[in-house]
C-alpha cells in the first residue's frame, strides 16, 4: 500500500464518517458542522485528483457560502434546547433497505462492469486552461448558469422577504 493509497483510505473513511454524522446526528447544528468536515474531505479528495482549483472552489463555496447559509437558517428556525426530538420519520427502516439495495447495485455494477484505465492519466491540469474552456467552449452554459444564479437570487430574496402587511 503506497502513501497515496493510505491517504486515500484515510480521507475516504473521514469523509464517509462525517457524512454519516450529517445524516444521523440528533442536533442539527452538529449535522452542519459534520457537513463542513465532509466538504473538507471531498476537497482533499479533489486535491488527490489534481483538481486543486476545484478544491479551493469547493471550500470557498460550500464552506464559506452554503454552510454559513445553512447555519443562518438553522439559527433562525431552531433552538439549542430542542433535544430529544425525533429526527427521523417513520419510513427510516424501509428507506435504509432501499438505499442499501441501491448502494449494493452501484458497487456491483462498478466492480463488474467497469474495466477502465486503472491508473490515472498524466496530469495535464492548469487553472488557466480551465478558465479558457469556461469562456470559450462552455461560454453558453456559463451564461445560462449566470442567469440561473440571478434568478435564484431574485427568487430567494422575494421568498425570504417578509410579506408586507396588507392594508
Amino acid at each position, binding site marked *: 500500500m503506497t502513501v497515496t493509497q493510505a491517504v486515500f483510505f484515510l480521507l475516504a473513511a473521514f469523509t464517509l464518517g462525517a457524512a454519516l454524522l450529517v445524516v444521523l446526528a440528533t442536533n442539527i447544528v452538529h449535522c452542519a458542522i459534520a457537513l463542513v468536515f465532509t466538504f473538507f474531505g471531498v476537497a482533499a479528495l479533489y486535491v488527490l485528483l489534481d483538481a486543486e482549483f476545484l478544491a479551493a472552489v469547493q471550500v470557498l463555496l460550500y464552506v464559506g457560502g452554503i454552510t454559513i447559509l445553512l447555519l443562518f437558517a438553522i439559527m433562525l428556525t431552531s433552538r439549542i434546547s430542542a433535544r430529544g426530538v425525533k429526527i427521523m*420519520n417513520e*419510513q427510516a427502516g*424501509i*428507506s435504509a433497505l*432501499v*438505499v442499501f*439495495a*441501491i448502494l449494493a*447495485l*452501484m458497487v*456491483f*455494477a462498478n466492480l463488474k462492469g467497469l474495466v477502465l484505465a486503472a491508473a490515472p492519466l498524466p496530469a495535464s491540469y492548469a487553472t488557466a486552461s480551465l478558465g479558457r474552456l469556461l469562456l470559450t467552449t462552455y*461560454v453558453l452554459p456559463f451564461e445560462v448558469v449566470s442567469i440561473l444564479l440571478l434568478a435564484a437570487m431574485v427568487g430567494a430574496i422575494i421568498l425570504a422577504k417578509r410579506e408586507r402587511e396588507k392594508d
Partner: protein
Amino acid sequence: MKLVVLVPLLPLIGVLINGLFGMKIRGRAHLVAVSASGLSCLVAFVVFFRAVGGRTLDWDVYSWLKVGDFVVPIGFLVDPLSAVMMLVVTFVGFLIHVYSVGYMHDDRGYARFFTYLNLFMFSMLVLVLANNYLLMFLGWEGVGLCSYLLIGFWYEKQSAADAGKKAFVVNRIGDAGFLLGLFLIWSTFGSLKYAEVFKAVDPGLGTGIYTAITLLLFVGAMGKSAQLPLYVWLPDAMEGPTPVSALIHAATMVTAGVYMVARSHPLYNLAPFSLEMVAWVGAVTAVFAATIALVQNDIKRVVAYSTISQLGYMFLGAGVGAYASGIFHLGTHAFFKALLFLGAGSVIHSLHGEQDIRKMGGLWKAMPITSWTFLLASLANAGIFPLAGFWSKDEILFNAFRRGMTVPWLLGLVGAFLTAFYMFRLFFLVFTGSFRGDAHAGHHPHESPPNMAYPLVVLGFFSVIAGLIFGFPPDHGLYHRFVAPMFEAAHEPAGAAAHVSVSFEIGMAALSLAIALLGIGLAYQFYIKRPGLPSALADRMKGVYRLLLNKYWVDELYQAIFITFGKRVCTFLWGVDSRVVDGAVNGSSWLTVRLSLLSAWNDLKIVDGLVNAIADVIQGGSLSLRRLQTGVIQNYILAMALGILGMVVIYLFLFP
C-alpha cells in the same frame, strides 16, 4: 489605433452613469454626458488623424455570437469612410450636447434626456464603426430605439407619443428589408463581416442576387433615411426636443442609410439596376420634399422637409456611383443642417415655444448671433458659393450629369432652385420685417445663453469653410484624396463617365449657382419687396397650394390605403364571418339540438346507467388509493428511489 474602442465606450459609460444614477444627480447630468461625448470626440480626432496617416484597422475584439459556423464578432473597422463618419457623429454630437445644456435646462427629464442622447451617440458609433453587418444592425436598431425614445420624449403630449410610434413603425418596415438583406448576404457569402463579404463578392454570381440584396438593403436605408415612400415619419419627428431634431433627424441618424449604401458599395457596383433605383428615388425625393417645404408654416417642419430633400441629394450622389460625393454632402449637410435646427431651436426658445413662422419676423435685431449663423446656414443649404453646401451639392449634380443621368440631374437642379427659395422664404419671414407675434410686455425675444450660442458659432464656422477647405478643387480636394481611394472601383461601372474639361465643370457650377441665386431673388421679391404676392399667388393657384400645404396628402393616402382599406377588409371579412359562416353554424346547431334531444334520452337512461356504475366502482377504488397521496414529500422521494431501484435492476439483470 485600438483606442477606437473608447469612442463608443465613453458614451456608454455616460449612459450607465446617467441611466443608473440619473435620479440622484439630476441637474448635474450634463457634466457626465457632455464630458463623455467630449472625450469621445477627442479620441475620435486622435483616431481620425491616425487614419489620415494611412492606417486602417479591422479588429475583432471578441466573438459575440457563435452558433455553429455562424460567427459574429464585436469588432471595429476604421477606414476613411468610417473615420469621417465617426468624426462627424462625435463632433456634431458633442456640440449638440453642449447646446442641450442650455436648451433643456429646466426640463423635468433632464438626466433622462442626456441618457438617451449618450445612448444615441453610442449606438450611432457602433453603427458606423462596426466591422460586420450584424453589429451595424445592432447600432441601427439602437439609433432607431433612441429616435423613438427621443421623439416621444415629452410623452405626456399625445402628438409626441404618436409621432414616436409612427417613426418606430415606419422604420420597422425598412428594417424588415434590411434584415432580409442580411439573411440573403449570410446565405450567399457565408459571413457578415465586411472584409469577408466584399472579398467573396464575385460578378460571376449574376446580377440577380446582388440586385436582390442591394434593393433589400436600400429598403432599410429608405426607412432610416426618410426617402420616398417611407419618409412620413421624419416631419412628425419634429415633436421631439429641438436638439434631438438637430442631432438625430438632421445630422446623424438619418444619414445612416447613406452610410450603409456607401459601405456596401462593392455590392451596389454589381447591381446597376439598384444604383439607378437609388439615384431616382433620391432625385425624386429631393424635389418632392422641397416642394412641400415651400409652403409649410412650422419652422421646424420646413427644415425637416429640407432634410429629406438633402438626403435625397445624398442618395442621388450614391446612386450615380459618386459615393464619396454623397458622403461629402453628408458631412457638410451635418454642419449646416444641425446649425439650422439649432438656430430654429434658439428662435423657438426665445419665443417660448412658438413655432409658427407667421407669428415671427424681425428677429434680426434681438438675436444677432442666431440670425447671422442662420443666414450662413441658409446660404450653405441653398448652395451659394463658397459655402459648404455649394461644393458638395455641386459635386453630386456634376457627377450625375457626367454619368449620363440627365433626368435626375434636371430634378436636382429644380430641387436646388426650390431649396434656395424655401430657405430664404424661411429666413425672410423669421428674421426680417416686423414682429408679427403677440408681443405682450416683458416677453420680448432675446438672444440665447452662451452655451447655446457657442455651438451655433462653431457650426456656422464649419458651414462656411468645410466645403472650401476639404472639397476644393471639386473631386480632388483634401477630403477626396482621403476617402475616394476607397471607392476607386466605384468610378468605373457608370461607363458613360466621359472626361470633361475644367471650364465645363466651372460652367456647371455657375449654372447651379445661378439657379440658387434665382431662387433667393424670387424669395426676396415675394417676401420683402411685395409681401402681398404670396397670398395672391396662393389664391390664384389654390389647387396646387393646397396640395403642397397638405403634403400631397401622403399621410392621408397611407391612411386611406393601408389603414382604412385594411379596416374595410377586416370589416368585410367580419361580415362574411357573422352572416355566412355563423348562419351555417347556427343552422347546423339547430339541427344538432333536435338530434341531440333524441340521443339525450338514450344517453340518460342507458349510457349513463352504465357510466354511473363504472364511476361508482372507480370512486370506491380511488377513496382507498387517495391515501397514497400523503402530502409528505419524503414518501414521494421514497417512491422515486424505489423506481430507480427497479430501473437499475431491469437494466443490470434483465436486459444487460
